[in-house]
């Protein structure tokens, strides 16, 4: 089975990269946003292939809505969202390429340099994983969990305040 897993991993890993590349190779905003969604879904599938089912499904679910919302905002704020005018999506090309190459090298280097330990052969099934995850949230990582709540609240208030204050000031 491990070989099938590996093949699928490679296929979907490449798919994730390919979608990520498509994000920048299109001038249509919605297509760009949904390419990112494609990339995210491919990553979600990678999770699933690695039998982290909850994470994978969660990733696929959350990204579906979130990337659609991103499409909304790209649609609203970008010029020529249809890409009919052949607008160039990228600017400062050289700097970006340099940054991209450097970051890629760093990440790949880090991946190789890290000691990932031995490959686990025995791991709990999906249901047990969910249970353990729940226990983790409620026991050891409770602080993290509650802090996340506060962080989300802050984000929520900040975004709403910014979005609505502009609007309200216009209305006044």
């Amino acid at each position: 089975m491990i070989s099938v897993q590996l093949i699928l991993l490679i296929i979907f890993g490449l798919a994730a990269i390919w979608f990520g590349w498509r994000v920048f190779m299109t001038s249509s905003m919605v297509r760009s946003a949904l390419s990112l969604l494609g990339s995210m879904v491919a990553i979600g599938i990678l999770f699933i292939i690695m039998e982290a089912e909850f994470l994978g499904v969660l990733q696929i679910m959350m990204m579906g809505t979130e990337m659609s919302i991103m499409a909304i905002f790209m649609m609203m704020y970008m010029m020529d969202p249809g890409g009919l005018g052949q607008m160039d999506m990228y600017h400062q090309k050289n700097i970006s390429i340099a940054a991209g190459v450097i970051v890629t090298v760093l990440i790949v280097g880090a991946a190789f340099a890290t000691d990932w330990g031995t490959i686990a052969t025995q791991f709990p099934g999906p249901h047990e994983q969910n249970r353990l995850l729940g226990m983790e949230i409620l026991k050891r990582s409770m602080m993290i969990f509650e802090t996340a709540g506060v962080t989300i609240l802050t984000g929520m208030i900040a975004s709403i305040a910014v979005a609505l204050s502009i609007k309200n000031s216009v209305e006044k």
Partner: protein
Amino acid sequence: MAPLTQYLLLLGMGITTAGLVWMLYLIKQSLGQTLDEPGKDIPAESGNLAPKPAWLRYHVHYYGYALLFLAFDMEMAYMYPWAVVYREVGILALLDMGVFLMILFLGLIYTWTQLGLKRQ
């Protein structure tokens, strides 16, 4: 059934669906080509020609909700594992999630008071 087999089944179903769709297209193909005519490829607009593309900046008037949703969305990540162990942990879990949801609810109430829960 081993989880991996299940995932392969899901993948297989997806591929099968795509294959069936492709077959449907083939059958359609056998029934003849579309005759090219002026106006036919223009989206119908109750009898008017709309030759211009519709891809414009589109004002989505519910963006306030969209922002709120983005924030709320994160909560899902915690809620499902929590729900699975809820009975096992008991009252602590209730309080725990209660606090968390209250925090989120505050955000909802804030948005509400800022008149964010309406069409922008």
